[in-house]
């Protein structure tokens, strides 16, 4: 996956077509679908992969998974209208080389019909199709918990990223929601929704630790969601992810926030430069984004750049005598 080119024109054309015909961008969901679209079905998937290619030699995988249960109100639809811009923004500003974006949705595995929807890493308009095919649950359990842990399990165990394996650069995973994960990844749910057999439950902390081997994991709590600003929910995610928790008071700024977070992670920009970039393109979201990213921007260490061979450091040696589990 991840080949092909993304074109703003194609996206624009698709959007105006939908507007002209009065169809929602969530046509699949709005047409009454209550089953996961086959492109987004995690069942029986070996891996969702982000690969380097001649066309995209240095892929940067970026996954955006959002909560589609009722507590999120109109947030999923706002996200849907904003997220397609993300790719163009990343490309235009050079925040990341060869971005490949995956969209997915999180529901509640204890009561929803479609608790997990996971697209592919794409670098063309297929990502927009994935977004359009997401079923909006609108239900949810009403217990302030959604199955984030199931989504994190899938992302930890069913993704394969060249950026990590070849270049030691982690991908980016953004979870957008307003609730807590369940405390454990449960074998029965894993079997039902992915087909994997698990011998015993996995704690959320353990699955986050595993996930972080591949992704920089961020949680975005947008305003307009039921539990926005809830100290218990923020506190829980902060204990789990440290400073990678972003409170976002302007949902319109979601793309910019994600783009800048990636740019900071890639060390393509510092926060001040990123905010200047935003102002340059006429964004009014610099205040929100600046507040949201202040802690991330100020604490990040800078990579040391030296040519290893010239410094007398080799990376040759025997093949790693490891068996990865």
């Amino acid at each position, binding site marked *: 996956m991840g080949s092909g080119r993304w074109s703003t024109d194609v996206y624009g054309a698709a959007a105006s077509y939908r507007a002209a015909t009065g169809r929602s961008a969530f046509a699949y969901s709005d047409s009454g679908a209550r089953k996961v679209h086959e492109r987004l079905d995690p069942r029986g998937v070996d891996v969702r992969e982000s690969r380097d290619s001649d066309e995209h030699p240095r892929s940067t995988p970026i996954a955006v998974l959002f909560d589609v249960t009722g507590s999120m109100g109109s947030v999923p639809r706002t996200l849907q209208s904003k997220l397609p811009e993300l790719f163009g923004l990343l490309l235009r500003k050079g925040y990341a080389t060869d971005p490949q974006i995956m969209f997915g949705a999180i529901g509640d595995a204890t009561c929803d019909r479609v608790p997990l929807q996971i697209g592919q890493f794409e670098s063309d308009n297929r990502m927009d199709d994935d977004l359009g095919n997401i079923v909006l649950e609108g239900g949810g359990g009403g217990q302030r918990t959604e199955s984030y842990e199931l989504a994190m399990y899938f992302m930890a165990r069913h993704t394969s990223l060249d950026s990590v394996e070849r*270049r030691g650069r982690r991908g980016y995973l953004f979870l957008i929601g307003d609730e807590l994960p369940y405390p454990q990844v449960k074998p029965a749910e894993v079997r039902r929704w992915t087909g994997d057999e698990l011998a015993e439950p996995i704690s959320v*902390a353990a699955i986050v630790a595993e996930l972080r081997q591949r992704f920089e994991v961020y949680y975005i709590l947008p305003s307009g969601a039921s539990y926005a600003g809830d100290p218990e929910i923020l506190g829980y995610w902060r204990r789990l992810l440290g400073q990678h928790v972003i409170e976002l008071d302007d949902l319109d700024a979601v793309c910019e926030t994600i783009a800048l977070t990636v740019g900071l992670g890639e060390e393509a920009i510092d926060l001040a430069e990123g905010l200047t970039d935003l102002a340059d393109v006429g964004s009014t979201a610099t205040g929100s984004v600046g507040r949201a990213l202040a802690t991330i921007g100020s604490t990040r260490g800078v990579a040391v*750049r030296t040519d290893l061979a010239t410094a*007398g450091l080799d990376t040759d040696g025997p093949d790693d005598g490891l068996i990865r589990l």
Partner: protein
Amino acid sequence: MTFAEAAALVDAARTPGDLFGGDQPAVTYRKLARLLHPDAAPAGRTVTATAAFARLSSLWATHQGRGNTTLTTRRHRYTLGDRFATGDLANLYRVRYDGRQGLLKLPRQPAANDLLDREATALVTLRRNGDPRHRAYAPELVESFRHEDPTTGVRRTANVLSHCAGLVPLTELARAYPDGLDPRDVAWIWRRLLVALGWAHRAGVVHGAVLPEHVLIEPDQHGVVLVDWCYSVTTEGGSVPALVARYRDWYPPEVAKRAPATPATDIHLASGCMRWLMGTGAPDALFRFIRGCTQPSPRRRPQDAWRLLAELDELLEKLYGPRRFRRLVLPTTTV
């Protein structure tokens, strides 16, 4: 600044100072790098961009201290020495900083970065949560930083560790005593190892790879240092991320099953090392003790290294009487 202006600027620069002599060299570098990166080059200018970008990278690297074999991070300036060791997944180099000795550990494959990250997390956790009296049982983390290759964009996690001379891995001990070590010599190593594990477990760290190469001893002072924390688990319910292939059979079953690693995992591995060190002539009671520590089900094994140490002490007293210091002589190091 346009692409052409940036390319001309880099072309005209004779020394790194010409480009990076200003107040914010890193900002200058990033600005130029963004303009000149071959991926972002205007149509038909890829060749110019590639050349200019390479020159920019080289000038930036020189500016950062390359050429006189030092590595400068935010916290230290390391003078690089020769290769000290080649481990399972990383190469270790001697470094000097602030008049001290250290070891720079660099993974051979960038895909192993997560394991270096684990080591850094474990060593920081041991410092923060562990009883300070036992700190000598693990190396100190001087610094963990990210290294990026300026041309390929490959990133590696590098760990700098404190270095103490005169330590010998159990593998060397086994080579010196091919018929097995006297159980009374094994006894102090075992006791110290249990202290190291008890200390780490109380701090919330499971080592995950207590294997002969990773247990270092200081023969004269009866010291033990547990090294290579790359396989460690610091999360409740977390599992060991990888096996050292040549020791595959030494691991307890929960490791390959990706089931949670617990203190009982380390106790199993440590007991295996001790059994391997002892000659076949060791008392049956010791082998029985080891069997009790290496049960396949983690629930049937001892769960607490400190309590196991007390049990071991009782057994040793029964077998050998009150403890006395025994000098351990390594034939290879006596010359």
